[in-house]
């Protein structure tokens, strides 16, 4: 890579490792057919600037496109609406060349103006986008955020098919940010027509368009016949039925009425399904960028002592907690999940060792034990996991009172710094994009440690923060020295033990017998539960 940099001032990012040009379509794929996907909860909104839960995330991905995209079933970046892009040598200027002839669902051609409009819209405080913060590195963001400017000064329309984005600081993750749903390109006229109801009347450039939305009942996606990618989508459409209990959805799947239960296999039925070879054959297992952890609040006695936090790390029996969720996870040793770049191979973490844990407590001067509280979200299986943690800590003399509350109350207590310990289950971190930086800022960095922040252990180490910033200033996201730096960041975090990393959850997607397509599409890391654009039916 260095030699390329030396030969030209401009680096063609398409040549970066991990940047696949495109995807080989499935030779067996046959076009046609509808599938049915069920969900328990209503779909909140399909506005790409606002939608931020795992349910609407993949729906939005099928309706909209951004400048960048991912190779289906992987975390590898590939070009999206931008045919190609160039990055200046200092990593602060990105020039995107747009594809010609891409049209929105309303028939109008997409241009560079739309890209600028969409980025201005998502960062505008009026939009109330939960994703605005991802764009903080674009020049002019602070002014927009403070309400002092109308649009981002760093986004410039060069010509109808070229857009230039200038950053105020190098940001290695910027291409990933441009692949986030928040960076989807939307047509101004449709947003203006529907105003705040745009999320109910989405218009994008995606593989599907919204055909019908009956609130509380169903959404029907129809194939976009003019989709700019040749050959896809294969399906004529997808029907999302909402308001279906997971257990009822499974019954319907077994009767052949449903193709994919969006909420997965209900925990109570997991062993029954996996014990039946016919059903188990239709379950696809895959990793996901997820870590479940216990936060240890470094501002509350006696968790402010390193030895105490180490002792708690040693006392937790991760294997047993994994068993509680039917083995649907692998025990974790560090904040990053194994499939994330920057993961430290060979790091053992804190081994389960009761005696060593007791010794550490004695060293900290609390050898007789103490009483503390563990906050946990009140939905299954989280209270059961909290009980296992309680038992583990009892073994070293620590009495844990369990505070089982609604999600919103746990988040509030964590943000306010009142919770000594929180089991993250149900609210655990799933990466927004496959880069190690995504597991740091809001949940381990100083920025998230303030009042109301999501760094619930309130851990803040300025030197580690500085190192993280430095790592993100390296232009090439996949540069070995950058990944090494991130690995060091997480190792230094573990030395101070503000977390007990417990497990990395596996994903299990069940499908009907008629569903076709590569297994990877059913555990797609960015499209949960499946990548609708590329799956097909065999009958």
């Amino acid at each position, binding site marked *: 890579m260095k030699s390329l940099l030396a030969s030209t001032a401009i680096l063609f990012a398409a040549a970066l490792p991990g940047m696949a040009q495109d995807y080989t379509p499935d030779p067996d794929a046959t076009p046609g057919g509808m599938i049915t996907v069920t969900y*328990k*909860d*209503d779909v*909140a*909104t399909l*506005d790409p600037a*606002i939608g*931020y839960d795992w349910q609407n995330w993949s729906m939005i991905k099928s309706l909209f496109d951004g400048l960048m995209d991912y190779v289906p079933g992987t975390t590898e970046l590939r070009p999206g609406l931008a045919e190609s892009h160039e990055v200046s040598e200092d990593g602060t200027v990105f020039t995107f060349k747009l594809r010609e002839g891409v049209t929105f669902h309303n028939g109008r051609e997409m241009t560079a103006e739309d890209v600028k409009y969409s980025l201005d819209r998502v960062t505008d*405080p*009026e939009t*109330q986008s*939960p*994703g*605005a*913060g*991802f764009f*903080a590195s674009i020049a002019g963001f602070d002014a927009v*955020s*403070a*309400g002092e400017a109308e649009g981002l000064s760093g986004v410039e329309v060069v010509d109808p098919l070229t857009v230039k984005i200038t950053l105020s600081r190098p940001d290695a993750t910027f291409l990933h940010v441009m692949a986030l749903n928040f960076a989807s390109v939307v047509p101004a006229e449709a947003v203006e027509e529907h105003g*705040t*109801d745009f*999320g*109910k009347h989405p218009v994008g450039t995606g593989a599907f368009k919204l055909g019908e939305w*009956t*609130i*509380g*009942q169903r959404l029907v996606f129809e194939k976009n016949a003019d989709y700019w990618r040749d050959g896809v989508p294969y399906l004529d459409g997808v029907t999302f*039925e*909402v*308001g*279906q*209990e997971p*257990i*009822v959805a499974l*019954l*319907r799947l077994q*009767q052949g*009425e449903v193709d994919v239960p969006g909420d997965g296999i209900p925990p109570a039925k997991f062993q029954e399904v996996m014990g039946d070879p016919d059903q188990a054959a239709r379950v696809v297992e895959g990793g996901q960028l997820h870590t479940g952890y216990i936060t240890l609040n470094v501002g509350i006695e006696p968790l402010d002592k390193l030895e105490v936090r180490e002792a708690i790390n040693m006392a937790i029996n991760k294997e047993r907690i994994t068993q509680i969720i039917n083995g649907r996870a692998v025990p974790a040793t560090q904040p990053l999940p194994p499939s994330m770049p920057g993961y430290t191979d060979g790091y053992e973490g804190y081994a389960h060792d009761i005696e060593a844990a007791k010794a550490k407590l004695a060293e900290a001067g609390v050898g007789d034990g103490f009483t503390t509280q563990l906050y946990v979200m009140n939905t299954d299986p989280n209270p059961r996991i909290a009980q296992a943690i309680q038992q583990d800590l009892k073994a070293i003399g620590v009495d844990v009172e369990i505070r089982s509350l*609604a*999600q*919103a*109350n746990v*988040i*509030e*207590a964590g*943000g306010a710094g009142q919770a000594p310990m929180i089991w993250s289950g149900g609210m655990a971190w799933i990466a*927004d994009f496959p880069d190690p930086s995504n597991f740091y*800022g*809001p*949940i381990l960095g100083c920025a*998230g440690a*303030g009042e*109301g922040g*999501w760094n619930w252990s309130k851990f803040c180490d300025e030197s580690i923060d500085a190192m993280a910033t430095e790592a993100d200033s390296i232009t090439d996201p996949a540069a070995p020295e950058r990944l090494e730096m991130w690995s060091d960041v997480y190792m230094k975090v573990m030395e101070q033990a503000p977390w007990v990393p417990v497990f990395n959850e596996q994903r299990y997607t069940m499908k009907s017998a008629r569903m076709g397509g590569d297994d990877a599409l059913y555990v797609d890391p960015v499209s949960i539960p499946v990548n609708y654009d590329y799956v097909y039916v065999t009958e």
Partner: protein
Amino acid sequence: MPGYLIRRLVQSALILLGVSFITFLLLYVLPADPVRQIAGRSATAQTVENIRHQLGLDQPLLVQYWRYLSGLVQGDMGRSYLQKTEVSSLIAARLPASLLLMAGGIVCELVIGLALGIIAAVFRGRPLDHALMVTSFVAVSAPQFVVGLLLLYLFAVQLGWFPIGGYGTFAHLVLPAVTLGIMGSGWYSRMMRSSMVDVLRQDYIRTARAKGLTRRRVLLRHALPNAILPIIAMIGIDIGIFMGGIVVVESVFGWPGIGQLAWQAIQRVDIPVIMGVTMVSAAAIVLGNLLADLITPFIDPRIKLR
């Protein structure tokens, strides 16, 4: 009568006002911040403040409440924080389904409850009476979730008589309505039994029998209309109880009613939606009670409304 109606309407409005204030107050002191939920985990402090200001959540409680009330009287229930849609349109999309289910449920519980109650009263003291009363006790105490799933498994999955959840046709309505009916029927059968037992002891029943009327005619023409009075008041109260049961039944059967909407809103601290659903339910309860009171004199002319 008009005076009575006006007095009751004013009373109802005051009750609704009280409900709205208490709910608003409870949501205000709730240890959960809707702004954090909207802003997301990567939000800057500035973004959080911006959103708080836009939603008016930086204002004192009474100012916020006043704004809500003035919107409400103009028919504006606000916008959902998370879906960004008008609360009124969210509720309007779901209310017909809930009302249909509620009507179906009430019919089922009346049919089941009254029939069991009458039979038990006629056979009072005999084994059938005891058996029916134990059954009604079990029906009242069984968890709705279990009853619903049991019916679903038996009649939809095993026998295939009804669709497995969903909404749209009469066949979809049967199982959820029967579930609600079974749950509520216990109260009605007990009430009906004791009321019937009471009536059957009255002199006019003895007279009717002495006149040589058939047993059937005595029961249906003379005893039933008199025994049913307390039941009517009960239906009014029952609407309130139904609101709770409907949440569970709607989610088991995938019924797109406001129960589901309420449950999702509570989980996500979507205050305008929670307020909206609470107000609609409260209005339904108030209205149900009012209707029950207004209907009573038509059945028993001895009762006068003042």
